């Protein structure tokens, strides 16, 4: 047995990459969502996360089918259209050591689920919320979603006459504490952002342009591969450095560097590409999104982060033992307590 090979194939949790895999995807060949699933697998593998420490959630649609294609050893719940945020919110109270990972689509988030999405963000429930955004309904065969670009033509729908919803902007308007945008055709960035999101102690929204090869991949469509490849405009290069790794200056000595320290001791390293961008400045974030909409820029990277904001779990003084493991004696008050209450009502 070649020991060296074995060491190479397992991470420090002692797991192989295959331990993070799922069922084979039944989505179309070339679907951006498959690439994202792969990056989720890579991110979790490289972070040495134990799959049983992750809980997956999804709504309805092509995107929402994908949680079965990764992390087969994680619990998960495929809920209702647009209403995954509420389900995740309730479930994540059961054991706060678990990391929530929500997968949604543009229809699931920006159409039917806009309300739940914004309230999840407003409460800042710690979880990763990925929108696999392709501007189109896939499972029902090609209708416009709320993120479809203005003027887009689809085979049986004609032209889209409404302006699109910008998911990152909606998140920011709801006071999101982590907003990123990426492109499924840029897997390295997708992976690094997912890693950072998994360390963020709040709702981490990642709007990933994830082309639908079957229904919305025309050259000039904003959600197509060719548009993305030709127009992706990264705000910075993103590198996630987990807490246990020491940051060595040599790795990042080219160009200017910005560091964002997260609560678990990890750091997001942002390397300047061509312009200055400060993702901790909400005003700047709102401006860059407005500019991007105006100029049809596909900006990607970490748009905004506030690692110190209070989150929903901070609002409750929960015990160390997960609530779902509390013994029954801990959840029923005593007979004497009831007797005192009875006295109050006489």
């Amino acid at each position, binding site marked *: 047995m070649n020991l060296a090979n074995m060491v190479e194939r397992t991470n420090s949790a002692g797991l192989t990459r295959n331990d993070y895999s799922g069922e084979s995807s039944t989505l179309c060949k070339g679907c951006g969502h498959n690439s994202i699933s792969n990056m989720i697998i890579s991110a979790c593998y490289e972070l040495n996360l134990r799959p049983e420490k992750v809980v997956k959630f999804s709504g309805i649609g092509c995107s929402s089918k994908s949680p079965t294609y990764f992390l087969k050893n994680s*619990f998960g719940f*495929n809920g209702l259209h647009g209403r995954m945020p509420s389900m995740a919110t309730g479930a994540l109270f*059961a054991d706060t050591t678990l990391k929530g990972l929500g997968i949604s689509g543009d229809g699931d988030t920006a159409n039917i689920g806009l309300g739940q999405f914004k309230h999840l963000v407003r409460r800042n429930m710690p979880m990763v919320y990925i929108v696999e955004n392709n501007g189109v309904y896939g499972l029902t065969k090609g209708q416009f979603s709320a993120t479809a670009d203005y003027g887009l033509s689809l085979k049986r729908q004609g032209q889209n006459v409404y302006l699109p919803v910008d998911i990152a902007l909606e998140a920011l308007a709801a006071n999101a504490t982590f907003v990123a945008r990426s492109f499924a055709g840029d897997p390295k960035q997708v992976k690094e952002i997912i890693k950072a999101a998994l360390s963020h102690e709040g709702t981490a929204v990642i709007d990933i342009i994830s082309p639908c090869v079957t229904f919305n991949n025309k050259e000039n469509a904003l959600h197509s591969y060719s548009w993305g490849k030709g127009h992706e405009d990264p705000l910075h290069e993103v590198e996630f450095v987990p807490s246990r790794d020491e940051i060595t200056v040599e790795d990042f000595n080219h160009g200017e560097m910005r560091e964002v320290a997260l609560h678990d001791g990890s750091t997001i390293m942002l390397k300047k590409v061509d312009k200055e961008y400060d993702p901790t400045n909400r005003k700047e974030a709102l401006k860059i999104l407005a500019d991007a909409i105006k100029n049809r820029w596909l900006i990607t990277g970490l748009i905004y982060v506030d690692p110190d904001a209070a989150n929903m779990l901070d609002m409750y003084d929960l015990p160390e033992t997960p609530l779902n493991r509390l013994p029954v004696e801990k959840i029923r008050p005593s007979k004497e307590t*009831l007797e005192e*209450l009875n006295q109050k009502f*006489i």
Partner: protein
Amino acid sequence: MQKKLNEFSILVSTVNGSGSATANNALMKAIFKMGIPISARNIFPSNIQGLPTWYSLRVSEKRHLARVDEFDILINLDKVVLADDLKKVKKGGLVLCDQPLAPELVEQFHGMQLPIQEVLEKAESPANLNVYLMNMVYVGVLAALIKIDISLIEETINQHFSHVEKAVKPNMDVVKIAYGMVTNEMTEACPFELEKRNLNEGYIVTDGNQAAALGALFGGLQFSAWYPITPATELAECLNEYNPQIRNDPETGKATCVIVQAEDELAAIGMTIGAGWAGLRSMTSTSGPGLCLMAEYIGLAYQSEVPVVIWDVQRVGPSTGMPTRTSQGDLTFSYFLSHGDTDYVILFPGNVQECFEFGWRALDIAEHIQSPVIVLSDLDLGMNNWMTPKFQYPDLPIQRGKILWEEDIEQILKKNNGKWGRYTDLDGDGITYRTLPGNTNPRAAYFARGTGHDEFANYTEEPDVWKNEHDRIKKKFKKALEIDPHPILERNYHGKIGFISYGSSHYGTEEASDLLNAEGKAVDYLRIRSIPFQTEVNEFLQAHERVYVVEANRDGQMAQILMLNFPELAGKIHKIAYLDGLSLTAQSIITCFDDQEKK
């Protein structure tokens, strides 16, 4: 003069937002403390200030606590409704209002003008409080006239204001001055009188919403998400109030139950089901419109087998309907909730004590059968103060059902040669073993879904698998009968005719049964407390020639469901169904019964 003793009714009409609730509760509780059975109902508008609101009291040594249509005493502080109110007062009744009675009415009633201005001036109370304190004038006057022990009123007001002297004193000053202005002659002339009894030993006074909240907290509730809606809001507010008091861990002070106000009912049920799936004992509370919004999610919980309790405090629908009026109109909807084939355990608390009991029991049943349990309370039970036997401590330890943690999985795998999946029916009762997020056994995880799935929770559209899975799920509802509450034979007059009723219609039905019996018509009465029906329901139908199902809705929803369940007995089932937003009176039940019996 022959006085009516301990058996009469009082109607108080005021303007809402004027603080009359304090005065009315003082009357109710003081009479309760005198040991005489009493019931109280608030009939109020969907409005905050300025519209008429009524409060009725029924004092009854015979323990008849249903609503009545005619009153012995009227207290009226709202001129706008005086003429209508007077139509509800029996001849010879007592009328107290803030103006002299018209001459043509003086002969019909014992009238008295309430000395409101005089009392307030004497009391020298702060002018800005007068609008509230004026209600205390009728408390004092009525206390003197019908002989309510004034020290008990003081006790009640002290309780109400938590013994804060600054609040108690101005109120009691007014009560005492008003009390003192009633002469002995006036009291002598009053046709109604109270006399202390000892019939309320072991009883408390509270409402069904509060009882439900406390019941759930004693049932080990761990998660509740809710959205404000009349008449259910108070239930969640009680959870908020009592949760920190009684459910923080006595050793660590940490919270063991989480309450979240959601952004709407869609989210409230979503959160509650998410929590239920993850292993928290979960409940949401709502009313009809909210239940409509929750329907799809409850179908998901049924399909993915998530335990959750939905507590519906019914109001009048459809649509916005009458938000502040009571009904039993959500039964059919609950019974068939969601598209596709479904089944639910539905519980019907018939009194406040049962609101407490079903508060904890519903959580046990939900976890036992891993499915949604719907509790149908209503505004009459939920929002009115009732005298009720003291809350009984649960007689069963908390039942968590079939949950497997790390080691349990190993054992079950050993026992079954490695064969076990989330939906494998190992025990043949349809109820499978579930695991909860956080379980680190490599076999523990599964992907729950609303889509078709096999016993390992994997997606499938296989025809046989779908059919088998749903035949299995059906079996769980047989199992539920083992722990669902049984019906109660409330009256057994050994008649050939029977009443069936449930929920708050109990009070009118029980009284109707008694009154009919007194007329020589023996009508037995069975109170249903749960669906699916226990065998006693079938037996009761079998044993009677005709059975009238009494309920507060238009179409006779329970009667229809009984006909569906017992088609061979459907010919025996008759409806006494009536909905006008008020709880049923014995008289209206009897009228409807007699009309049908004549045919």
